């Protein structure tokens, strides 16, 4: 249609309106007697309708207000009356000349009105209905009090377990042990030394249940005032009274917890940094120790960058949730541990699970996704896609077949999120984790590698390594990084020392610490009577600068011969001192001397040894386990899981199985003096696949052959006491 006509019409409408307004104006001005306006302005406009105005002119001189108003109103009234007719005239002419325009415009207007009105109408309707159906205030009060009195559940009461697919024997039933049978759960560790855990002394405390533990606490409160240093002195004297057990329980593969060098590092760092960091990383909680350990770790693992979290579990959780968002796709091994699974849940991405460590099933799932892609013509680049696996599975002790998974991931173009919390520092020749175990590299084969520093590395916290993009993104999006206080700097230093230990550069680090010498700085206002300092001073006798007399005194003190020349005396004293120093340290700190690949080799030897002993058919104690407990973990895994064999498990409910295993672990602890963990009673509601109840043993480097013998003997005895003699039970079953 022609635009010119439309403009013409608009112009016409405007002209008409303008003319009418002008007329009113002129009329008004006449009423006020200002004839000037009438004369000055274009008189022609008035031609058509001038009679009315002119007729009213004579009154203007004698005008009174009512009259003036009346005329004003009549004019306005007339004008408004004429508006519709004029509009109709304009509209009809428009309709004639440009019908399409009119149609469109009308439709638009109708739509607008409809939208506005209909919207409101439904709203009203909704509200009215709500009001009609709503309970009265009295009824509401009744409902509320009823709910409060009867329907409300207590906080901390049994939670209905929802979700979580259960497979495997007896997996379907939800076992809820009212009386926690985990004997070790209430054990309180008082000291860790070598491969041994020392518990708080006293039989009552050993068997203290969680309910009575608070009474124990009350007793402790009174002794809080006594400083811990005095109590530590006591414990060293009472060592014989303290029940101890060989540690097969904590994930402390490299025995970092009993390493004296690491403790020294911790002390040194504490002296410099104090304890806490008092802020999140963003707000002055970044301390140079954090940057240092991030650098060290990224270079150790041959990654571009690393990011440090203050908690291992939240590292896993936050890493997954930082990258996968709604609409993305996660293919997850169903055996992943809780923290990783929470990350998967929080990401709100689409999740598909594949069977634990089952590459075939993974392929099936991946192909299914690919088939769906083809069906709906979705490109793989439309969606971020990740495979989520663990390196060494915490709950199974199995090692992920990463080589095959990497092949699949490259074939189907997925990125790999690897949680190596339990494999880092124990798998691979240099302890670089599962990737090294398979000869793979971070970033190239696994885009995102996250792991906890709490297991092998003896620190607290977690890390994620990857390329710069991966790491930098988490610095803004990793919830556990952004919104949580950073790790205490001394823990970062401990982690750094652990990394150096794995690299075999521990000596350099210790030299630095010695160079700094801040460990020995004694604050002025408090006299530090650290027993370690005193001990250190004792064997650092400066024999080179001693006089002969002093040398003799020193030698006599130690019951050595005092004859000979000065050099001989010095030599003798020196030999003795170094020998005793070694004697003192050899028991506990031989581990400290190991570092780098040697350390890992020791660990792998220990793993192999334990595995061989357990499966040795000619071993008298291992024989007792035969056909009753089976090993379900990977032969190279330092985390060893035992479960009841099929023969034993059949005919027993899961509850019974758990209590048998609990009894075994309790027996091991109390009689065999070996700490192992029975995992059956653990909470299950956070897991996708609930593992079968089992016994968990963790190998560490400080365990000796005797320790392993003790473990196997304790296990054998425990199994016999819990399940009865093998021959007997065989007879009964027959």
């Amino acid at each position, binding site marked *: 249609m022609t635009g010119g006509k439309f403009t013409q019409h608009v112009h016409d409408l405007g002209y008409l309106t303008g003319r009418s307004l002008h007329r009113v104006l002129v009329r008004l001005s006449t009423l006020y007697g200002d004839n000037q306006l009438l004369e000055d302005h274009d008189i022609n406009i008035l031609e058509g309708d001038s009679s009315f105005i002119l007729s009213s002119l004579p009154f203007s001189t004698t005008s009174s207000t009512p009259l003036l108003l009346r005329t004003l109103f009549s004019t306005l009234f007339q004008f408004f009356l004429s508006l519709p007719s004029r509009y109709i005239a304009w509209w009809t002419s428009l309709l004639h000349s440009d019908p399409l325009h009119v149609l469109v415009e009308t439709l638009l207007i109708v739509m607008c009105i409809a939208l506005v009105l209909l919207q409101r109408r439904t709203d009203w309707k909704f509200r009215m209905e709500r009001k009609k159906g709503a309970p009265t205030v009295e009824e*509401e009060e009744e409902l*509320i009090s009823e*709910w*409060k009195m009867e329907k*409300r559940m207590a*906080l901390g009461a049994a939670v209905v377990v929802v979700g979580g697919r259960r497979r495997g024997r007896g997996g379907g039933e939800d076992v809820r042990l009212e009386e926690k049978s985990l004997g*070790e*759960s209430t*054990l309180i*560790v*008082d000291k860790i030394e070598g491969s041994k855990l020392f518990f*708080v002394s006293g039989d009552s405390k050993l068997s203290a249940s969680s309910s009575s533990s*608070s009474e124990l*606490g009350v007793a*402790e409160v009174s002794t*809080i*005032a006594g*400083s*811990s240093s005095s109590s530590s002195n006591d414990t060293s004297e009472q060592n014989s009274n303290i029940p101890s057990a060989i540690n097969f*329980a*904590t994930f*402390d593969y490299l025995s970092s*917890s009993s*390493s004296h060098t*690491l*403790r020294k590092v*911790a*002390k040194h760092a*504490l002296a410099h940094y*104090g*304890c*806490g*960091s008092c802020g999140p*990383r963003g*707000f*002055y909680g*970044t301390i*140079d120790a954090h*940057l240092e350990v991030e650098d060290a770790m990224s270079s150790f693992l041959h990654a*571009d960058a690393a990011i440090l979290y203050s908690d291992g*579990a939240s590292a896993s959780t936050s890493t997954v949730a930082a990258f996968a968002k709604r609409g993305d796709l996660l293919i997850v091994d169903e055996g992943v*541990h809780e*923290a990783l699974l929470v990350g998967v849940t*929080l990401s709100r991405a689409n999740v598909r699970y594949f069977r634990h460590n089952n590459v075939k099933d993974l392929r099936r799932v991946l192909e299914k996704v690919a088939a769906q892609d083809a069906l709906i013509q979705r490109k*793989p*680049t*439309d969606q971020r896609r990740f495979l989520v696996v663990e390196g060494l599975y915490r709950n199974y002790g199995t090692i992920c077949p990463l080589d095959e998974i990497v092949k699949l991931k490259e074939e189907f173009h997925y990125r790999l999120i690897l949680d190596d919390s339990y494999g880092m520092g124990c798998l691979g020749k240099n302890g670089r984790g599962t990737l090294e175990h398979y000869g793979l590299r971070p970033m*190239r084969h696994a885009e995102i590698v996250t792991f906890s520093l709490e*297991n092998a590395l003896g620190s*607290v916290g977690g890390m994620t390594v990857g390329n710069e993009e991966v790491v*930098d*993104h988490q610095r803004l999006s990793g919830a*556990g990084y*952004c919104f*949580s*206080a950073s790790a*205490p700097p001394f823990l970062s230093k401990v982690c750094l020392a652990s990394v150096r230990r794995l690299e075999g550069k521990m000596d350099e680090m210790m030299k630095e610490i010695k160079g700094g010498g801040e460990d020995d700085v004694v604050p002025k*206002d408090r006299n530090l009577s650290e027993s370690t300092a005193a001990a250190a001073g004792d064997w650092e006798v400066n024999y080179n600068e001693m006089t002969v007399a002093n040398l003799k005194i020193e030698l006599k003190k130690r019951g050595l011969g005092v004859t000979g020349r000065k050099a001989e005396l010095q030599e003798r004293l020196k030999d003795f001192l170094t020998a005793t120093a070694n004697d003192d340290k050899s028991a506990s700190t031989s581990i400290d001397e190991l570092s780098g690949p040697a350390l890992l080799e020791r660990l792998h030897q220990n793993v192999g040894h334990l595995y061989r002993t357990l499966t040795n058919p000619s071993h008298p104690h291992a024989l007792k386990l035969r056909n009753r407990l089976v090993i379900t973990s990977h032969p190279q895994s330092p985390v060893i899981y035992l479960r009841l064999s099929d023969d034993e498990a059949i005919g027993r409910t899961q509850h019974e199985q758990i209590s048998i295993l609990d009894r075994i672990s309790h027996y091991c602890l109390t009689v065999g003096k070996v700490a192992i963990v029975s995992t059956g009673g*653990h*909470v299950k509601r956070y897991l996708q696949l609930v593992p079968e109840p089992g016994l968990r043993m963790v190998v560490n480097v400080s365990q000796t052959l005797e320790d392993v013998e003790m473990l196997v003997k304790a296990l054998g005895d425990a199994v016999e006491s819990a399940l009865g003699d093998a021959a007997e039970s065989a007879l009964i079953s027959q």
Partner: protein
Amino acid sequence: MCNTNTTKSKQYLSPVAASTLANTYDDSCSSDNDGVPTPLPASPHSSAPPSPRGSVIGSLGDNANISTATATATTTTAAAKKASSSLLAAHDDDDARGRLRLVSKINYSRREGDDPYADVRERMEALSLRDKSRHVYHCQSETQPQDDDDEGSEKNNFMVATPSSHHEITIFAAITTYLGYVVLIVTGHIRDVCANIFRKGRYFRSQSTTATTPNPPGHYPSDDFTKYAPLLKSWENFYTRRLYHRIQDCFNRPIASRPSAIISVLERVSFDGNKTMSVLGKLSNLEDEKIALSYQMGQHYDTTPDGRVVRKCLNLGSYNYLGFADDWDVTCRKDVMGSLDNLPSSVGSSRLEFGTTTLHRRVETIVASFVGKEDALVLNMGFNTNATIIPTLTARGDLIVSDELNHTSIVNGARASGAAIRTFRHNDASNLEFILREAIVYGQPRTRRPWNRILVVVEGIYSMEGEYCNLRNVVTVCKKYGAYVYLDEAHSIGAMGPTGRGCCEYTGVDPADVDILMGTFTKSFGGMGGYVAADRRIIAELRRECAGSAYHNSLSPVVCQQIISSFQVIMGKDGTLIGSQKLNALRDNSNYFRMRLTDMGLHVLGNYDSPIMPVMLYNPTKIAAFSRECLKRGLAVVVVGFPAVPILMSRARFCISAGHTREELDRALKELDEVADLLKLRYARSTFG
């Protein structure tokens, strides 16, 4: 003169008054009371050091003074009442100021010697009382009847001179802020387009190069965007690249010291236009001698023992509320070092297995007795405590009603729990009541089954607002409707209340009425980790069922010892008064700083007695400018931008510590005054800042 109808104020020491909100009034009055109608709060615990004023006056050995006869307390109370109202007007009113001085002479002369804030004590206390009466006890003094002209005028002054604690963003600021973002975004897009055209740029990832060279160094299979979706979505990535990286130097500043009152901020440089920041290190790393000289000439230039360049700054950003980072050597060092004799820095096992040491149990007993609960559970990380406790307490079929400004950890925990989540307006108990009422009456959506449990989650101090929780009303409402209360005291424990027992103590709520008390040790205690305290039955359940206890590794024993040592100091069990001194100093420092900031005409959020004070900046450009200007002047401040706060509400946040001295704060205030002029920040005074 005794004016009972006008002195409808509450007596400090009345335990009866503590039980109700604002209904009971005490008719007691004192000799010099001329009827100033400021209602005064009731003391929460009659046994605790009773008046907030009492607790702050004495910095040393004042406990005896505090717990002396009630009669004197009443007298001073009445005087303070007068002072509180007249002082509020004092800022504008010379006459009032004159009178004020008189009052202060009478009441506070005795302590002037050791009180660094003696000259402003009156006003600080009055302001703190005002905020407390408003936000804790909800008494509106304006409704009091008046029969004296003089008093009336004073009351009017009081009303006028009282700035509203809820600042709205001015239209000018809103427009310029939006404009700022528009400019930034448009510029960013232009730069992106240019980078694409010229195939060059900091962020230009050469996707096409993979075709020419199959495996260039630094290139990984997943960089091939023909097969992989980009790892980062465009907007997130755009925000990071074009907005965040521009001001990256204001965040994540590394320090080379303890987070004490004076920190050494490591100098950083960027060689790629702020894309990455690297620590400068030694001065010799600089090639240009002129620049090196300019560093050396800097007023706050310093070096670490190994030669790295640092800037000595006053720390206004760390959560070192009680200053344990400052005097760590005196207060905690010995015991913390001693803990390493027997125990390692990490046990490597979960709490449920072998991760419980004597120290963990000790911390738990102390925490339980400190906050007034039967038992407590200590977990490794504050964030994780929330994120694992809430899913253990609630499950599908439960309802979590959460304050809209709650911390991410609470949000994460609530989301992971599977429970339904509703939010109520920040600190609005009536909105909470409405939501609870409707939830109970209508039950679960669709099925209309009743909710199994309703858990109301609030925080003690909101870390981005500096406001304390409206706990009294929240608890009243929750009790009425039978909802459980979960109080996150991450920032308030150890920092609020006369003895540092947190929000409950401050607001006078019985800890028994709060079902779950959660808190962290990162802030006031200079440690790490979090606790949850509740009835023994609940804690026993949590120990068994909570992922943080069953799966996650336990807190470092060394940190446990740090917590124990700091608790001993706070509770005075170390045999010194350091703890109470710290608490008093924290309160005084923060009230003084807040008062002076408000006087400057800045938009200061939050309430008196809270150590966190956000100052509104609004404009995105001012975030960086403020931070850089402050750093230049030797102040380490925290600025907060978009992801953490709403896009319009960029702010700077000061966290005051007991380790600060008045001289340091005065210096900071002087510098801030300059910066405020420079950046036009006085939004409370004028629309245009």
